């Protein structure tokens, strides 16, 4: 109640609340999550920093337009349950988004508090509050199963169980349609399970979300590689009325430099899949091996590169070099990930670019050769283009190399569905409002449409698709 009377000036004086974190020296020896999350007191204080401004630039910055001022106000009032409800109107996976969204480029970017204090770092910590509420709700036991409308008799097949697929499953099921999710791997979650490591996103959270869906009556089918086991047309023949394709970006890109097929060279997808999904960190108690590395080079500057570098540290590497061809500010990774990697001792080799990998006679990588770069004129992406500096090559001894420069689109579905249009990068073409593809009854969204993007954008497309699927199943209009 007291807080209500605070003036904006007083609110601006409340310090930004920091989450407690595991000590970097300790945490590189375990897989536990790095930040501990807010205490309820901290959460209330942080939420009190919100000015409840009318323009709410935060909502405009959120791809799924969570009603942020309302849920922050509910936190101030101690109504955590209410806050959870508010968030879940538009975001079914808040425990995940609170941890992995690039808030500093979205909701927190426009925040007036951050603007007044002249740094986005001091914006209201909306992501941390979202996480707090989601965790609080999970601690209360099973989440309330949302109301499911009367059965419509219509069936929807969802291909891929990443954030896009899971979002559509929830939204379509709520309308009373029968939903089956087909997943190629033996576990659900897509990148949330096989890519993003435990220390950043505990797997129990993802599994809880999937259980919630199952409690709603969504059927999960694993080990089903659609395109191979059933084509999309066969799914229609089996009685599905609509299909949502959310197969993700998964097809790793390599640098196309000499030596990339040497032993000890991994795509980030492979390295992280072995470590996360296949639990190679417990080898030999578990069966899937992974390189035992001393000196590791990671190529790239995004979240995937940070996750790979930090995983390598936890698997016992002594030196982990992160090689990125631009400078630190251009890194596409979340600020928090770069900061955590730095704290943990990842060595940044910035403005440098690998040019080849050198192997020993048994075919193992033993060195990388890099060239120094300088930044030139801005390119199409608006970032300054890195240019090699002549004769600046140098070599570093390594025994493992992880290529984390991005993913292109997986070909299995497009190859087996000739009437599904793709663009020249192999991404499925879908209407940006309805996510309808060129094939009747088939919708698509997430990384398979966007190219490698983010969890929240995948969910955003999922929401649009779900609305359009529900509409299509109602009136049959394409």
């Amino acid at each position, binding site marked *: 109640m007291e807080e209500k009377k605070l003036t904006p000036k007083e609110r601006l004086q409340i310090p930004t609340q920091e989450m407690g974190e595991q000590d970097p020296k300790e945490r590189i020896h375990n897989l536990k999550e790095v930040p501990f999350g807010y205490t309820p007191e901290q959460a209330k204080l942080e939420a009190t920093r919100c000015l409840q401004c009318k323009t709410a630039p935060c909502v405009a910055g959120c791809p799924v337009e969570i009603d942020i001022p309302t849920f922050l106000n509910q936190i101030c009032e101690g109504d955590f349950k209410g806050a959870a409800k508010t968030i879940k109107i538009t975001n079914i996976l808040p425990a995940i988004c609170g941890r992995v969204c690039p808030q500093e480029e979205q909701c927190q970017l426009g925040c007036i508090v951050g603007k007044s204090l002249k740094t986005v770092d001091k914006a209201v910590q909306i992501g941390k509050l979202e996480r707090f509420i989601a965790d609080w709700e999970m601690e209360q036991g099973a989440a309330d199963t949302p109301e499911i409308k009367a059965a419509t008799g219509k069936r929807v097949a969802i291909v891929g169980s990443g954030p896009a697929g899971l979002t559509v499953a929830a939204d379509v099921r709520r309308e009373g349609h029968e939903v089956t999710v087909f997943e190629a791997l033996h576990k659900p979650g897509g990148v949330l399970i096989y890519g993003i490591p435990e220390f950043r996103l505990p797997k129990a959270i993802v599994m809880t979300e999937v259980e919630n869906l199952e409690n709603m009556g969504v059927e999960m089918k694993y080990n089903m590689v659609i395109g191979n086991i*059933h084509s999309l047309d066969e799914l229609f023949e089996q009685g599905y009325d609509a299909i949502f394709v959310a197969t993700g970006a998964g097809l790793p890109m390599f640098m196309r430099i000499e030596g990339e097929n040497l032993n000890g060279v991994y795509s980030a997808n*492979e390295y992280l899949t072995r470590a996360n999904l296949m639990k190679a960190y417990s080898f030999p108690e578990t069966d899937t091996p992974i390189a035992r590395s001393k000196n590791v080079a990671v190529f790239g500057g995004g979240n995937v590169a940070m996750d790979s570098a930090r995983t390598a540290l936890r698997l016992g590497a002594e030196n982990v070099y992160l090689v990125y061809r631009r400078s630190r500010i251009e890194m596409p990774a979340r600020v928090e990930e770069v900061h955590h990697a730095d704290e943990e001792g990842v060595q940044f080799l910035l403005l440098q670019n690998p040019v080849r990998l050198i192997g020993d006679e048994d075919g193992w990588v033993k060195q990388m050769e890099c060239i120094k770069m300088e930044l030139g004129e801005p390119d199409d992406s608006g970032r300054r283009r890195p240019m090699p500096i002549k004769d600046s090559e140098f070599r570093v001894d390594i025994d493992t190399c992880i290529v984390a420069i991005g993913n292109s689109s997986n070909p*299995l579905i497009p190859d087996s569905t000739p009437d599904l249009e793709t663009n020249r990068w192999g991404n499925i073409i879908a209407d940006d409002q309805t996510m309808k593809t060129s094939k009747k009854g088939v919708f698509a969204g997430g990384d398979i449409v966007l190219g490698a993007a983010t969890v929240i954008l995948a969910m955003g497309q999922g929401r649009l698709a779900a609305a359009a699927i529900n509409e299509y199943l109602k009136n049959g209009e394409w």
Partner: protein
Amino acid sequence: MNRILEKEFISDQVFRMRVEAPAIAAKRKAGQFIILRTSEDGERIPLTIADASAEEGWLELVVQVVGKTTKEMSMLEEGGSILDLAGPLGRPTHIEKVGTVVIVGGGVGIAPAHPIAQAMKNAGNSVISILGGRSRGLVIMEEQMKAASDRVMITTDDGSYGQKGLVTDAIQKLIDEGLKIDLVVAVGPPIMMKFVCLLTKKYEITTLVSLNTIMVDGTGMCGACRVTVDNKTKFVCVDGPEFDGHCVDFDEMMKRQRMYEVQEKESMDRFQS
């Protein structure tokens, strides 16, 4: 879960397992494979489909015990089950009537060669199969291969069965007999496929090989299975498993096969003790 319908050792280290998998059995084509996992903490391993019945809904796998997972699998019995089975994976063999096709199967590679021989025969080709093994016990599925071929030749390294020698000697013999070979399909250890390709290249006989690299997902997501074909990187699980043998960098592939040699041994030793 996929129920095990039959299991039997067909030689010292090689067993045959029939598992229930109706959807895959209905869909699979010659040359395709599956990925399976036997336990919660188990590895995902690729195995080529040796036979299948769409009517009865089963797949047959022929497996050589080489590491922990295959050892563990060999201890499963009829009535038990395989935890996960995903497939059919990879592109099917391109089956076409070309004339005379020589199918070369080495060791446990005879198993995946079998459906290819069947399909080639059904397409109207004259099929000659060459089965090779280090010794008699490693030459498997002779009867089935006979049924799928017009002629079968057998070679063993130690001469304990068939002709003493290598599969390449048998191919050479066919060439020397003046036979016009239109296509060779070789499935077996990489070293065997390499030497088959060296020979057939000399005589300019188109040769397909089926590669069995290390894999994780089998859907193109990880790149563990990559090989160099015609100086380009290819993923065996989605671009293959069959490639033009004359373009494959076998030396690189053989080195990559040994990537986890140390860990594999450790895992096996631990399992056996």
